[in-house]
């Protein structure tokens, strides 16, 4: 390298830094552009879907009747009416599913993290939870159909739907709870044992509360997901255009079921109902997602 500072115009030879060949630069640039493009490609359908839903559904849900009335007594081509019967069905089926799934999922996760260790059963359980995650919702619905309706002889009902949703929700809760329990430091467990607190109480009063914010966030997200499931309601519930408060008996509407049944209604009113229900469903899911965020902020262990 030249040390002659006076002669600035002359290039030092060899150059201090080897230049990167054009081919390598071009490849690098191409790759950068491609991965950025991939991301943009994924954003397009998201925006497009949401835009479609809002554009077609928003005018419908602005009417106060939409939230306060059912479709009872309306002909398929009559506009007006509302979907509170379907909102009720969606929420109740989802919440009952949550009531059943949360304890099961919680206990499975506690077993895997606190008791299972590397035992055979623990490995089998982990594997089966993975498989359950991949079970198609229609298969879950068929299983409940053959168990609840064919074998036990009950009729189609909202509760049967809840049971099928349990199969879809449990693995999600197990996974998130497991992750959350794993990040609770062992030092807290030891501190508790050292105070002479039995293991089960340590888990209930120390470990789970520490992980609670993450667990509840997971539960909310899982709820949001199962409420949009359509296959189980198709198989396990009959549609009713009126309100049915009884989860255990009779036809019961839910938003996805309303949407599929209105697909057979080629009128303007049917079209409005479908997209109105779609945006309602999206709003409910968004609400639960927001709730998840709020809960995680609110319950997270504080230091101040």
């Amino acid at each position: 390298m030249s040390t002659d500072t006076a002669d600035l115009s002359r290039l030092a030879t060899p150059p201090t830094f080897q230049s990167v060949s054009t081919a390598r630069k071009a490849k690098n640039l191409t790759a950068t552009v491609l991965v950025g493009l991939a991301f943009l490609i994924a954003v397009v359908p998201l925006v497009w879907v949401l835009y479609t839903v809002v554009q077609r559904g928003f005018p419908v849900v602005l009417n106060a009747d939409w939230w306060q009335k059912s479709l009872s007594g309306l002909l398929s081509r009559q506009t007006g009416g509302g979907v509170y019967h379907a909102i009720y069905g969606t929420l109740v089926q989802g919440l009952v599913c949550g009531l059943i799934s949360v304890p099961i999922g919680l206990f499975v996760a506690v077993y895997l993290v606190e008791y299972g260790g590397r035992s055979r059963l623990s490995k089998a359980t982990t594997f089966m939870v993975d498989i359950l995650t991949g079970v198609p919702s229609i298969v879950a619905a068929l299983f409940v159909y053959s168990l609840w309706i064919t074998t036990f002889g009950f009729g189609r009902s909202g509760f049967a739907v809840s049971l099928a949703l349990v199969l879809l929700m449990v693995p999600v809760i197990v996974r998130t709870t497991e992750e959350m329990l794993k990040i609770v430091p062992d030092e807290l467990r030891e501190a508790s044992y050292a105070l002479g607190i039995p293991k089960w109480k340590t888990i209930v009063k120390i470990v789970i509360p520490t992980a609670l914010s993450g667990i509840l966030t997971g539960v909310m997200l899982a709820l949001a997901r199962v409420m949009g499931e359509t296959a189980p309601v198709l198989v396990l519930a009959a549609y009713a255009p009126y309100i049915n408060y009884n989860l255990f008996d009779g036809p019961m509407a839910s938003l996805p079921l309303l949407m599929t049944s209105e697909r057979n209604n080629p009128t303007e009113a049917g079209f409005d109902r479908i997209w109105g229900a779609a945006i309602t469903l999206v709003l409910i899911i968004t609400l639960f997602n927001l709730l998840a965020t709020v809960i995680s902020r609110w319950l997270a262990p504080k230091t101040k």
Partner: protein
Amino acid sequence: MAKRIDVKDLNLFYGKFHAVQQVSLSVPPRNVTAFIGPSGCGKSTVLRSLNRMHEVAPGARVEGTVQLDGEDIYASTVDPVQVRRTIGMVFQRPNPFPTMSIRDNVVAGLKLAGVKNKKQLDEVAERSLRGANLWNEVKDRMDRPGGGLSGGQQQRLCIARAIAVQPDVLLMDEPCSALDPISTLAIEDLITELKKDYTIVIVTHNMQQAARVSDQTAFFNLLGVGQPGQLIEVDDTEKIFSNPTQKATEDYISGRFG
């Protein structure tokens, strides 16, 4: 309340690994015993076997006896949970319960054992915090989270939590290793005070600390990698530091290894 501990022919295992071999020693009541030795010599493992925390690790096993005032804590009729309620422990890193307030942290042991009387809990909280020299610093913010305190304060909070259940013995596993010198000094002063009421066993990496706070010192060593740790000698601290019987002890104390 302070009790004596007698360890006889203690062998400790993690699965197949023989961690500690043939330890026998006695800890008199109202006395501070320090465990010193190089890393991996098993001093923490021995400490954890004194309140049956050793067996919390999967595959851990204990042979030999540990007696508390003559009663074997490993007897088949003894519930480990009860042992731990009698023999408190303070850990290397301060570990207050993150979801609990300062008050709830201190009385966690009692509350979870079913004590509900608020007045009584408040009394215990104050007494324990005073005992841990922390009362004056936190009395105005008892409802704030324990995680908001400084490291040294958190460790004293953990000591308060341990003495709130009125144990007979206090085990301390390198309680100052994560603390700054000033906090360390505060804890050491506290240990000297707690000695009046409790039997204390402390594991420390810091030989000056052992010399400062303990009445009796046990030196552990291991012969080689993969070999079990052993108790080399145990004696009055003064004697260990001035005139040890074993060559290895002298080497370690004078800083020739470890």
